[in-house]
């Protein structure tokens, strides 16, 4: 029998750390999705050459991925801003750079990625959009200046996308104090999940059948990789120290998080894969004997699965601790 009582408890001391909530999860989710959009959009743009200026028949991903990236990332930034308890001091993020602090890397990284991806977005605008945006004179001006560098910008954004995707995982995995997060596999899992949700969004917004099939095939590969990474993640924890073993327990023992996690697995990973697995067998891209609905439903489930995964990791990670007084 063991009994622990604590006199003088902090809100966070007992029963467990409770400092980050859904806003952080949403920031990580949108950050991951934008990483996916940047990487896949860049690949899509670079492989659909030659790119004719103002071409309207380019794949949607060639311009929508760059356009959505700075917008979604700014929304993500808004969520992390909401979480700050001293918002007026935010400028201090940019008066200091702490090389050891992932939060510092994130603040600077996102601060650089938003304008760079915005430049890429302008260089990728299709003619019809440019016509609509004509009244803001700087947009056509910037477009003309940036178009010759579009491929270079795509490559740069692809690299920044990889940084961003990995960063969303490093932000959590760097905390030795939280055993669930403290894993080198987490950044890879988040990068992969970001690519998967980015692909899912592109599947939904793509107009062309060929493009939908391309990203669906990509997503099948990404979901399959995710299953392997998740298994490795749990395996690494299971074979590690006792705080690591205990940290994954909420996912597998009866209680609040168990049905939650099963839902992620079934609805966010297996079901979307099962729905579109036959697309992998489609040779080339011209044959599309699939119902749009099935592909879209699968993509929506991937999007929901990605969000629930972030929520699960943010909340369950805070239940985990190295301290004996927090263990229940």
């Amino acid at each position, binding site marked *: 029998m063991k009994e622990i009582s604590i006199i*003088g408890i902090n809100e966070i001391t007992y029963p467990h750390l409770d400092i*980050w909530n859904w806003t952080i999860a949403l920031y990580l989710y949108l950050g991951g999705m934008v990483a996916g959009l940047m990487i896949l959009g860049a690949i899509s743009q670079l492989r659909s050459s030659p790119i004719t200026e103002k071409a309207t028949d380019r794949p949607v991903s060639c311009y929508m991925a760059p356009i959505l990236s700075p917008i979604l990332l700014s929304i993500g930034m808004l969520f992390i801003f909401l979480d700050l308890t001293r918002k007026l001091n935010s400028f201090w993020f940019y008066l200091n750079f702490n090389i050891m*602090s992932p939060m510092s890397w994130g603040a600077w990284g996102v601060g650089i990625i938003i304008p760079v991806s915005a430049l890429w977005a302008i260089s990728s605008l299709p003619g019809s959009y440019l016509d609509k945006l004509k009244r803001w004179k700087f947009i056509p001006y910037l477009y003309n200046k940036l178009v010759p560098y579009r491929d270079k910008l795509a490559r740069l954004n692809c690299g920044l996308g990889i940084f961003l995707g990995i960063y969303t995982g490093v932000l959590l995995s760097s*905390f030795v104090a939280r055993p669930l997060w403290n894993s080198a596999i987490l950044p890879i899992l988040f990068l992969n999940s970001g690519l998967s949700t980015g692909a899912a969004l592109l599947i939904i917004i793509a107009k062309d059948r060929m493009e939908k099939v391309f990203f669906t095939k990509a997503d099948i590969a990404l979901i399959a990789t995710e299953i392997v990474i998740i298994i490795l993640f749990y395996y690494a924890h299971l074979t590690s120290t006792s705080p690591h073993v205990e940290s994954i327990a909420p996912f597998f023992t009866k209680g609040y998080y168990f049905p939650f996690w099963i839902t992620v697995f079934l609805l966010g990973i297996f079901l979307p894969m099962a729905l579109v697995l036959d697309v992998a067998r489609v040779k080339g891209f011209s044959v599309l004997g699939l119902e749009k609905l099935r592909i879209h439903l699968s993509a929506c489930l991937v999007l929901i699965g990605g969000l629930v995964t972030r929520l699960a990791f943010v909340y369950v990670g805070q239940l985990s601790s190295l301290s004996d007084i927090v263990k229940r």
Partner: protein
Amino acid sequence: MACVVACKRENDVPEEHYRTRVVEIVEGKFPKLRMELRPELCNHCENAPCVYNCPTGASYKRKDGIVMVDKKKCVGCKACMAACPYDARFIDPRNGAAHKCTLGEHRIIDGKDPACVTTCISGARIFGDFNDPQSPVSRILAERHVRTLIPEAGTKPTIYYIGLELLT
């Protein structure tokens, strides 16, 4: 629990929050029970993850080893709280800044001990300068077997415990 009360009183600690706590651990089966009373506070770690995880430099380490928070620079991102294996920090609800034990720095400047040490009736808390070989803490460190909390976290705490037995 005089230390918990003295700290709150001395340092204007916000309501429902504490800079120090006493963990009471009872183990065994009646009537064979063992008990440990363990005061806990910020460990003023040598390798402090709260400091190296702070993006703004608000958490910093003084030359004398005391880990402090500069409220002016704090943005309230809570990275330091997530990083602390000892859950020694909290957000001050009055101003949103990270808050923690300062080792009674306003008292030690005047040569006094921290309030929790002064008030401890059994002398269980001992304060001193490790750089001074004659200080009581240096002598205890040399003579007794001491341990730190969660040494596996690699934070190198500077708060040492004598007779730490249970649950560690």
